[in-house]
């Protein structure tokens, strides 16, 4: 069976998979790469909006994606933790089977921006100019305050005197600028808000910030699998300058043009001889989109829940039978629960790649605790006289478990399964971070684009689904819990 599937997979060449991270610029560039490949007749699909550098990078290493846009600064700082210099990235990547592909022509590094009117009044052009104005109010993203190359290093390098420094969300910082509460913010040099909010980018005259040149990372074995792919990607080399990227970010983020359209528009305008493959595929309607997401979401939850059940109930039985072991089991599944979901997802990627598998594995692990705990509690909580009654009959132990103990514990076990299911419906929205689809996809995109409508298109059905699952379990109780136990709620078990 497995062999057949593998054979079938080998026969039809897998499409080239382009990855992107969960922010607009990455998605737009990923879309550009996908369309450029498509224009050369190479089947390509875009695994868009993966949850962070580690997720996409690991997916690239595993071969779950073949191409993704990255920044040289991120490679130096995050991937190689400063052990490799920008100039030596090519060989370092090659050693890992990754090619440092075409540079795209723009940089998206950290920069400081000052309000236009303030900059004009004080004559601010370079970061050094800030030295003379200790009264300026600075508002930085929390990440910028924490990073090694962030605020602290910058202050040292330039000898900056400002005392009024606040950490806040990137979006909120822009809002602060608009309201006049903040004079200087950190920004990414291609943020469309630079124009929209009338900010002046200050020149990094001491070259403090590392270089964040945008490049495509390509798996070295791609050309062998998809001849011509590498050449197609070359079309993007040095084609996207800073203003072009800012314009694309602006239309995606500020005008809410879908990224595929933004990318297609750019290619039509900027790439000579560009013939767009008939872009007929209209965006499916809202109902259709929700139905698709619902299918993906339910698949994740259902598979994970079945796996959780298969493992957690025996574990719960074991925990109830052997007290010492039981404590250890309960502690272990409890610890899993404390691992943050994104961390758990990222941990899964080296083992399971991206897509539905790491999401199911994470949901499965999170689903264990409520079921194990309630199975254990249900069994341990059987009334002493019933326990003695079963002892006194001398029932064979397997029969006793199936016909007496599990039925008596069934209300508790079912409650645990219900908890697991509801948690899974909620947690599955994070599956979108690793490309598993589901209602998390519109939520994630909605957050990225600050598009409340899109966000609700994911959040509302997910909430409704959680309620639906809850209601379904009420019905299931009638099937699973023996009638004799449901007769008088005031005297359970």
């Amino acid at each position, binding site marked *: 069976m497995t062999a057949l599937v593998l054979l079938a997979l080998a026969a039809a060449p897998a499409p080239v998979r382009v990855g992107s991270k969960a922010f607009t610029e990455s998605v737009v560039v990923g879309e550009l790469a996908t369309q450029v490949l498509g224009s050369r007749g190479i089947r390509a699909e875009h695994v868009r909006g993966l949850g962070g550098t580690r997720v996409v990078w690991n997916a690239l290493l595993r071969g779950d994606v073949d191409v993704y846009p990255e920044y040289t600064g991120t490679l130096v700082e995050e991937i190689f933790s400063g052990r490799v210099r920008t100039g030596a990235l090519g060989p370092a990547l090659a050693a890992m089977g990754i090619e440092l592909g075409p540079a795209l022509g723009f940089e998206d590094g950290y920069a400081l921006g000052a309000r236009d009117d303030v900059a004009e009044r004080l004559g601010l052009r370079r970061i050094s100019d800030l030295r003379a104005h200790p009264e300026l109010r600075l508002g930085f993203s929390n990440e910028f305050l924490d990073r090694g190359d962030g605020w602290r290093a910058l202050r040292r390098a330039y000898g900056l005197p400002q005392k009024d420094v606040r950490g806040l969300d990137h979006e909120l910082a822009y809002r602060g600028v608009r309201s006049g509460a903040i004079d200087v913010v950190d920004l990414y040099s291609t943020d469309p808000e630079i124009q929209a909010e009338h900010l002046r980018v200050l020149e990094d005259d001491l070259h403090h910030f590392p270089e964040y040149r945008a490049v495509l990372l390509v798996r070295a074995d791609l050309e062998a699998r998809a001849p011509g792919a590498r050449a197609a990607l070359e079309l993007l080399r040095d084609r996207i300058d800073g203003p072009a990227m800012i314009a694309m970010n602006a239309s995606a983020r500020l005008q809410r043009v879908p990224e595929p359209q933004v990318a297609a528009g750019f290619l039509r305008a900027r790439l000579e001889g560009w013939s767009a493959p008939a872009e007929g595929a209209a965006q499916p309607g809202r109902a259709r989109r929700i139905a698709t997401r619902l299918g993906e979401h339910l698949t994740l939850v259902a598979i994970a829940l079945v796996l959780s059940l298969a493992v957690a109930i025996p574990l719960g039985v074991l925990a109830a039978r052997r007290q010492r072991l039981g404590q250890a089991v309960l502690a272990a599944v409890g610890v899993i629960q404390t691992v943050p979901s994104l961390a758990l997802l990222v941990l899964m990627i080296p083992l399971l790649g991206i897509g539905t598998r790491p999401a199911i594995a994470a949901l499965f692990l999170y689903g264990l605790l409520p079921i194990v705990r309630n199975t254990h509690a249900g069994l341990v909580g059987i009334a002493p006289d019933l326990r003695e009654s079963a002892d006194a009959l*001398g029932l*064979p132990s397997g029969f006793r478990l199936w016909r007496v103990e599990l039925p008596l514990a069934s209300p508790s076990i079912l409650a645990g399964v219900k908890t697991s299911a509801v948690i899974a419906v909620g947690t599955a929205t994070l599956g979108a971070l690793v490309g598993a689809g589901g209602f998390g996809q519109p939520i994630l995109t909605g957050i990225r684009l600050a598009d409340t409508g899109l966000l609700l298109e994911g959040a509302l059905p997910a909430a409704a689904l959680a309620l639906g699952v809850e209601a379904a379990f009420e019905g299931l109780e009638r099937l699973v819990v*023996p009638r*004799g136990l449901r*007769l008088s709620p005031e005297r359970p078990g």
Partner: protein
Amino acid sequence: MSLPSTSAGPAVGARDEAVLRLRDVTRTFGTQTAVRGVSLEVPRGRATVLLGESGSGKSTLLRLMAALIAPDSGEILFEGTLLTPERGPALRRRMGFGLQSGGLFPHLTAAENVTLLARALGRPAAWQSRRLEELVDLVRLAPELLGRWPLQLSGGQRQRVSLMRALMLEPAVLLLDEPLGALDPVTRGELQHELARVFRAVGTTVVLVTHDLQEAAMLGDRVALIRGGELVQVGPLAEIAACPSDAWVARFLAGWRGGAPG
């Protein structure tokens, strides 16, 4: 069945007379000695009542006989076989045990409770239903109650079902722990007569625990008086009353008027 060497000794012929034989049995819980040095024989075909005040250790003694707990010292033979924790489950299938609460499983109907062990042991369905009919007649339970769940039954009905369950596989001994203890006085009096009738009809060996003198008088062929975990005196109640072994026994039996209830 061969006996371990430790239990070799007294009269082999006694196997036929005594269903249960306790030799110097002691059991403590923590620092509390619940049963101390009890030696007792439970004769076949008779009803033995373990009589004593609450906390005297009589229920512990019954659980020792059912191998639900193991003695710290001493030994208990059931039909000549030494009771051990390993043999417990198998040997218990030949004992019928009844709890004060009835101990019926709430998720099973009355009939399912009665036939549970028979099903576990794979007895034929036809045999089961025949036996169920016999037992319904014996304990005088309305047959339509068999389809009900325990929570739909009265206390007295539950005790009847519990008795049916204990009798289902024709046990060698019936061990009953205060079977009427949780019932109201009217039902209790009614069921005392019922139990006495059932014991006579079945002719099985019975060990019954109670603190109620009248109940002991009505149901027991023999009475074993227990005090502070020790066996004080054994015999027909009339004999004990005639020559009490000490002042406590005399006082304990003072309320009894030679079998006349009241």
